[in-house]
């Protein structure tokens, strides 16, 4: 475990000496904060206008109208585009600069190497999420957000993001070309995302069961429940299995490089 953390720590340090991580963090928090302010102001206006009407007052809900659309709507799209940019360099970079010879001739297992890299990049994701906490704090000052729902939302975001990262890491093991790794990552995530879009036509062709199976495979259908404040074990298990599966495939690929 100590070696795993050593690898992870070095990975995090590498992200923060290159402009890439700062850029991604900056883009993420700028866009999110900007949308937050706009939405907050328009929500406040609505509240001012309709607040006196008892019927409308009941309809006003900061969680439903501000937090959920902003986080649940914006973040998955953002992750789809930007997280593969974080993972694309993980394994190709080692081979490009020849450090794979150091790593693979050290007394480490492929599992320790892969897990270390995954934890490192997941720590960057956690840093990204930490940057959004001030928004929640602002909300807490001006209104009464549902903190439990927000906690569940963050758990969902973290799980989904980690699954995206695991898939990206796995694909980076197949190629030495970072651009290719990025495109493969976005493409695969898009493919997994749109599995749910085929539900309609598939139901009419093959019936409910195979269509439902496909929908359950989609990376996006497991997310909305978290945003509603529901932590359902099937969704947690889904993301954890996706992560485990991707990491196991990565370990196999790294091992196969040793035997070439």
């Amino acid at each position, binding site marked *: 475990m100590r*070696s795993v953390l*050593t690898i992870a720590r070095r990975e995090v*340090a590498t992200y923060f000496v290159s402009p890439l991580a700062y850029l991604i963090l900056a883009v993420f928090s700028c866009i999110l904060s900007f949308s937050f302010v706009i939405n907050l102001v328009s929500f406040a206006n609505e509240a001012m206008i309709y607040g006196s009407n008892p019927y409308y007052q009941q309809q006003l809900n900061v969680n439903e109208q501000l937090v959920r659309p902003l986080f649940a709507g914006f973040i998955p799209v953002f992750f789809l585009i930007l997280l593969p940019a974080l993972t694309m360099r993980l394994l190709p970079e080692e081979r490009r600069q*020849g*450090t794979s010879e150091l790593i693979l001739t*050290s*007394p480490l*297992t492929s599992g320790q190497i892969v897990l270390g890299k995954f934890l490192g990049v997941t720590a960057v994701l956690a840093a990204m999420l930490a940057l959004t906490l001030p928004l929640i704090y602002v909300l807490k000052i001006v209104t009464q957000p549902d903190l439990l729902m927000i906690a569940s939302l963050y758990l969902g975001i973290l799980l989904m993001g980690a699954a995206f990262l695991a898939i990206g890491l796995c694909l980076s093991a197949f190629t030495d070309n970072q651009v290719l790794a990025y495109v493969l990552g976005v493409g695969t995530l898009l493919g997994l995302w749109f599995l749910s879009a085929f539900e309609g036509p598939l139901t009419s062709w093959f019936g409910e069961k195979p269509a439902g199976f496909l929908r359950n495979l989609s990376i996006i259908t497991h997310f909305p429940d978290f945003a509603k404040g529901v932590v359902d074990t099937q969704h947690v298990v889904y993301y954890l299995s996706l992560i485990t599966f991707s990491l196991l495939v990565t370990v196999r690929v790294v091992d196969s490089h040793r035997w070439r």
Partner: protein
Amino acid sequence: MIEVRDLKKSFGERLALRGISFRVEKGEILGFLGPNGAGKTTTMRILTGFMPPTSGTALVAGHDVVERPREVKRKIGYLPEHPPLYKEMTVRSYLGFVARIKGVARKTIGSAVGSALERCGLSDVAGRLIQNLSKGYQQRVGIAQAIVHSPEVMILDEPTVGLDPRQIQKIRNLILSFRGEKTVILSTHIIPEVEKLCDRVAIINEGRIVALDTRERLATGLQPSERVSVSFSSDSETLKGRLEGLEGVQSVVREDGAPHRLIVEARSGSEISRRLLDLSQAERWPLLEVSMVRPSLEEVFLRLTGEEKGVVA
């Protein structure tokens, strides 16, 4: 310390190693000499556990590299042909990282890094980013990463390639300081390097070891004839005929640009130099110098690797 038996490796159809066997004793420096693509790097990568052999066995410090790779890896320091540097790190943090993944105990990491820095002459640049260092310094960082966990065995793949003569001198002195303390295998295609550094030389060609011995024995053992250089204080022309008449002499050649010097080549074992001295004393020749001409390792190398004479490998 290192024992390799009938090591073979194929990459698809291509046979990179066709059965390599050798032993290296503790504290010895063995040089791999061979043309590019002869199998030097492949052999080293198998020894370090970077890739497995197709067949054959390799033992490092008593452990099989395939069966107990982690024990072997702990005992080996490896400098690949391109030093494996994370260039965005400082020298000190990089060496700390390597020490950790090599399994150096937490408490001793600081002193391990400190002594590697000092030994490789890196103390002054410890806080600098590796990417800002010159190639010579980067190479030294590469060697420092190979010794930071005090391995018993060091495997250095072309440690001086691409450096200027002064940097080469420093790296060589560093390697020489390991003699007797660590077991070293280094590869090179620079012949003077083997002559200066190595106790024994293995000449590798097309996936085989074609010769393995000390430098002197390699040179003399492969010599088909004895050669002696003779200098006289007067013109040597008249003496040339007398020398040609000696028993066992195959040829006498006047050396270019030195009219008083002759190169006498005789059948090996004919003790030509002793008989030549006896003769010159008896005849009172104006003799200035008699010396054996040893074939250079370069000649041996070129003969064994089947390249044309005069072509520098």
